[in-house]
């Protein structure tokens, strides 16, 4: 009998307490962080600012600029979870998110009525500034500006070291706010590229021409997959990988790899996987439990019994037996057996 994890029966089920609590007030809960929507404002036709008021379980004091939260919303019977950067945390603990309509979840979230209740996680993530704050180079594209804007607000008031921001955008979200910051703080230089007006992408020469003393900076990048890839390559070329920090919103599996047979042991199901294991399993009609779909929340973590896999976030290859993997950020590179 496996007594590795100490078994402890619950005296009162937490969901029962929450069930009673939410009859009194919809955001009350014993441990869960629930929040009600205060207001939703359009920043552009497809970019929305969402103002949330979390309950007493939210640990606002733990928040560090650049961190994100997982938002949970039930859609068609399935609780979906996505990670969003906190743009600002107000003094009263209210959370401001900025969400771009680009999928089912962000569509549903941005259409919530005021007073609707969603579930949140605590603030989390390592995309934060080191202390003391060094000189910085921020690179953002599209909705990646949310995390970068959060870091920027913190950085300008924390030190007087030079800060540069390269922002590639189609809709100019937060453009006015950032311009104001640039006027207020002389050591902050703002480089704005509206990609509708000028077809500009991130490149080595662009970065070297815009940012002085690039070698001394800590570089923070957040944005589209192609921009992230470019940023990572540039930092490798310049030998700056140690100072490079990135926050991914999208991941791409290597589509050139051959499809691999995957076996789910306990449910006795087999399928062919050619993208990440979660997508592949779903394409085969299986419904493994999952959450954020980007390697954060651990809901889809399970034991890989055998086979070789690649971590889509880190690129690490894992050949070992009986290791923990997250389905959503794992691609099979050999036949794989999973204990699910």
């Amino acid at each position: 009998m496996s007594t590795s994890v100490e078994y402890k029966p619950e005296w009162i089920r937490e969901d029962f307490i929450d069930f009673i609590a939410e009859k009194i007030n919809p955001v009350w809960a014993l441990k869960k962080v629930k929040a009600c929507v205060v207001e939703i404002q359009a920043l552009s036709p497809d970019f929305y600012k969402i103002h949330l008021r979390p309950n007493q379980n939210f640990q606002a004091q733990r928040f560090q600029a650049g961190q994100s939260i997982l938002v949970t919303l039930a859609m068609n019977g399935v609780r979906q979870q996505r990670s969003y950067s906190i743009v600002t945390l107000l003094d009263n603990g209210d959370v401001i998110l900025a969400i771009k309509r680009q999928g089912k979840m962000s569509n549903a979230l941005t259409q919530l009525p005021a007073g609707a209740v969603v579930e949140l996680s605590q603030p989390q993530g390592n995309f934060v500034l080191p202390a003391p704050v060094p000189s910085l180079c921020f690179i953002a594209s599209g909705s990646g500006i949310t995390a970068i804007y959060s870091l920027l607000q913190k950085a300008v008031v924390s030190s007087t070291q030079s800060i540069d921001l390269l922002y590639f955008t189609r809709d100019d979200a937060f453009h006015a706010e950032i311009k104001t910051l640039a006027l207020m703080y002389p050591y902050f230089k703002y480089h704005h590229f509206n990609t509708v007006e000028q077809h500009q992408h991130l490149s080595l020469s662009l970065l070297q021409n815009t940012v002085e003393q690039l070698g001394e900076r800590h570089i923070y990048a957040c944005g589209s997959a192609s921009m992230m890839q470019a940023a990572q390559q540039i930092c490798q070329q310049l030998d700056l990988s140690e100072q490079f920090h990135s926050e991914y919103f999208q991941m791409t599996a290597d589509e050139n790899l051959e499809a691999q047979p995957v076996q789910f042991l306990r449910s006795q199901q087999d399928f062919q996987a050619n993208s990440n294991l979660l997508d592949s399993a779903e394409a085969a009609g299986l419904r493994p439990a999952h959450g954020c779909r980007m390697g954060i929340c651990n809901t889809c973590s399970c034991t890989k019994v055998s086979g070789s896999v690649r971590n889509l976030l880190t690129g690490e290859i894992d050949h070992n037996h009986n290791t923990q993997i997250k389905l959503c950020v794992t691609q099979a590179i050999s036949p794989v057996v999973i204990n699910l």
Partner: protein
Amino acid sequence: MNMPAALHPNSKSKYLTEAQIQEFGAKVEAIRREVMDDLGEKDAQYIYKIRNFVRYSEIASRGMLMFGGWIPPVWLLGTGLLGLSKIVENMELGHNVMHGQFDWMNDPTLNGASYDWDTIATGDDWKYTHNYIHHTYTNIVDKDHDVGYGLLRVSEAQKWEPRFLMNIPLAIQLMVFFEWYVGLQRLHLEDVLVYKTKTWKQVWDEAAGLRKKMRRQVVKDYVFFPLLAGPNAIPVFAGNAVANVIRSLWASAVIFNGHFTEDAENFEADNTENESRAEWYIRQIRGSSNFSGTQWLHILSGNLSHQIEHHLFPDMPANRYAEVAPKIKALCAEYGIHYNEANFIQQFSSVWVRLAKCSLPNHWQDKIGQGSNLIRTGLAQLKAKFQ
């Protein structure tokens, strides 16, 4: 090499060729896929509705016992409702959730891995004995412990021992204390008591989790709620005890009906070692039996009334079994596989006939069979003479 489970001489199923078996398996697979692709809002609403029924009925029944338990009709109503609440919590909610049927909802409160039900057995022990052992080795004598629970003889393939003469009285007390037996099942107490292959020390060590769960259940129903009721302590205590027995009786009856009925087949281990998915499906059908009834009967039985469908698709939300059942039944008819179905009373009576038969060694049964045949033919001859 694939070895389909050998047909029992009395099996009502036809022999199928390898190709037919694979074809049958693919059709079962297609039925599963159609439902699993369609899961969504209405299935989520269903299980939330069931859980809310459990919550409201528990609040109402405990309230009745606590405040009006001294009034006999209120006590009866409260106790009955609490029994009902416990039945639905165990069967339609707990059993099904712990099979992982609702894992796709991503709701941690309805996740099979962490759900722990309101009964003596710990969720972990039960997932081992039931989800793994019973559902994988269904009805394989000496592998599936649910074949008699080490207490009863329910198959002629089980070796007869003198203790099985007590089959019927043992089965009756098993029903009354069913939740305790389910809790103890993983410990295999018969290995200590009868076969002496295990020591009490081993049992004690293995029961660490179970002891905690037992304490929780006993303290909750027999100490906490009676004390909370103050002057109504005795009616509350009695009501809780009776409700637990009601639940045990019902749960055991449903489970007996699933695998111990007259035509539910047992299998031998060597037949099943290398079986394919399709053969596994066929074994599940031949080893299980359904009972028919109203929607309420299905809910109260946790949809184990659709035992065949449950064994084919243990991870499909149980509220979908009713729509799948006619398709499986038609498929079975097409391939000549016996689909064991009758009403509750018929199935339940055939369980007792089987238990009675199995309490005797096989050769005695034959003799009794011959004897009864003799009597029957004798009677027929007598009748013929007098007509």
